[in-house]
């Protein structure tokens, strides 16, 4: 019965259609799957970026909001001639590199390694604690750092150091070490991202692999060096890429903690400058055009970095061939 039905179906389909029905139907499927993310990228990256590029070539400000003049590359010239642009650029690089190296990657790696090698529940407990800074509202979090760094007689750090004969200083002042606190406050939050990624990667290393290393005679450091770190290669590259790009554009903690100070631009970073020019100008005059030009630099640097990372780290190797060959 079934065979008869099949035979009838086969006859019913015209030869032409029967020959190549699949490719035609499937050609659009991959694009359909990509559509949602494509819409998001276009809506929230490409269009804003284009608008940004346009505004950066105008003198739009709160004074001439509705009819700004097109002034070409004037804003960019102004930036490059700015007395502090070099300083701010250096600051940004310093901030990104230090926070990334010592906290977002370094500390994250150490926390993951330690908490996966102690008793399981203790490990989970410590990792939960490390998540807390991220869960705390930024303003509250920075207030706590300000209390820690405050000058005598209040500063918590000073009180701890007092017994050792330390005189005490306002750590966020020029006499203190504002950069240390900028990096610490950002790093303590940043570390938890890498921590989660690294921990799950470490825990997904097959148990038998670790046992094999034990039997082969590897000490704990050798196991980290020869088994765990090679297995963490991709998570490491991912965290470096993702976190360096997000550090580049982050400024809110610095803004709250030092506002780029003390003094002139001691801890000012690029994104903070852009923000201030656009929305927090001293004279209540928001220079959107000029601020956009600052932001354009960030977009360009970000895109270049992303491309370099993609190339250099060969991220396409991460993308596996589809397991099911349909598309």
């Amino acid at each position, binding site marked *: 019965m079934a065979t008869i039905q099949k035979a009838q179906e086969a006859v019913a389909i015209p030869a032409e259609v029967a020959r190549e029905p699949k490719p035609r139907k499937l050609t659009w499927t991959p694009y359909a799957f990509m559509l949602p993310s494509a819409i998001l990228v276009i809506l929230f990256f490409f269009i804003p970026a284009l608008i940004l590029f346009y505004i950066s070539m105008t003198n739009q400000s709160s004074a001439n909001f509705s009819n700004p003049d097109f002034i070409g590359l004037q804003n960019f010239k102004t930036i490059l001639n700015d007395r502090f642009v070099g300083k701010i650029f250096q600051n940004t690089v310093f901030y990104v590199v230090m926070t990334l190296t010592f906290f977002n990657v370094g500390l994250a790696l150490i926390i993951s390694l330690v908490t996966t090698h102690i008793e399981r529940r203790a490990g989970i407990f410590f990792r939960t604690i490390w998540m807390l800074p991220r869960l705390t509202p930024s303003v509250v979090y920075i207030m706590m750092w300000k209390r820690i760094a405050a000058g005598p007689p209040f500063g918590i750090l000073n009180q701890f150091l007092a017994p050792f004969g330390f005189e005490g200083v306002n750590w966020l002042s020029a006499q203190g070490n504002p950069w240390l606190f900028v990096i610490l406050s950002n790093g303590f939050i940043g570390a938890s991202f890498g921590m989660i990624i690294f921990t799950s990667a470490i825990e997904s290393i*097959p148990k*038998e*692999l670790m*046992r*094999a*290393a*034990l*039997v*082969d*005679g*590897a*000490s704990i450091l*050798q196991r980290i060096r*020869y*088994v765990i770190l*090679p*297995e963490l*290669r991709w998570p490491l590259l991912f965290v470096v890429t993702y976190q360096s790009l997000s550090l580049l554009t982050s400024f809110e903690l610095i803004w709250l903690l030092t506002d780029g100070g003390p003094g002139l631009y001691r801890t000012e970073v690029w994104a903070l400058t852009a923000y201030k020019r656009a929305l927090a100008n001293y004279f209540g005059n928001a220079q959107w055009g000029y601020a956009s030009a600052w932001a354009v630099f960030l977009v360009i640097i970000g895109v270049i970095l992303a491309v370099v990372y993609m190339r250099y780290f060969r991220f396409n190797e991460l993308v596996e061939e589809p397991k099911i060959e349909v598309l």
Partner: protein
Amino acid sequence: MEVVLRNLTKKFGQVVAVDHINLEIRSGEFVAFLGPSGCGKTTTLLMVAGIYKPTEGEILFDGRLMNKVPPQQRNVGMVFQSYALYPHMTAFQNMAFPLKLAGMSQMMQAERVKRVADMMGIGHLLDRKPGELSGGQQQRVALGRALVKEPDLLLFDEPLSNLDARLRLVMRGEIKRLQHELGITSIYVTHDQVEAMTMADRIAVINEGKLQAFDTPDDLYDRPKTLFIAGFVGNPPMNFFTVSIRRENGDYFAESEGGLRVKVPSERAEKALAGGLEQVIMGIRPEDIQMDESGTSENKGPVFSVEPLGRDDLIDVHIGPDSVFLLVDPLKRVRLDDIVHLEFDTAKVQFFDPETGKSLLWT
């Protein structure tokens, strides 16, 4: 190296994975741990390797207490079920890894790895990463890695269970030959009794964390000391019947309530009767039962099921409430509900105490 396990016990919380195991493994011996899934074989092996700490009991290597010695210092080689090769290292680097950790010079490493690789027939694969090797090749690399450091003890945790039947046969032979030539004391964990029977000098049968028997394959098969062993070893498994033993005209007969009646050798029957038990459990292997084509045997019944196994058919004949499994030639074309007569060769018949499950013949 001689290995002794004394009251070895491992508990995971409430679960007793290994329960007071006592075992003495002679130097150069090939011992199999055989038991059903979850019986504690791997746990025992990992304690011997030093990866798990025993909850109780002792592990001795050549008389030296090893409980506190870390795995790095035990000089054991281990082959895992999943091979556990380092994915980012080539086959060469995998095999050289233990030597590198031991601080051996590069030249010595290369020389040793080459020698072992040639012995294993993987000399041409040394540049490949595990992902570029077939399962069987990976298995050889894993075995090579365990061998290069010339261990005092080799541990195998079901190393062949991921291979196809043919390759398993080949590897079985190779591992056995290597072990024999190198004379390294070995413990081989498996739940495949054919593997255990064909490879091991002695087999430790483990069930629910307890050692059930530790004997040569022949002893386990022909002289099982417990009902569990008798039923566990051998495929298809032994037939069991509850019988009483009668003496008639100087001969002994075992009779079941269902009507089965077979003559049994007097030597064995006397031992079975010595305990004064009213009823005993009699065990006969399927291969000791034949179909009686002359139709004279008094033991007969309908065929309840026929399972073609290829070379033989496994048939189940019901004699009263008793089920009798035996192997017959497929050419005989036995069909369901045929009435067949059976002939029992009772030379190897076994008797067990129904209460304790202990053999009445062997202690």
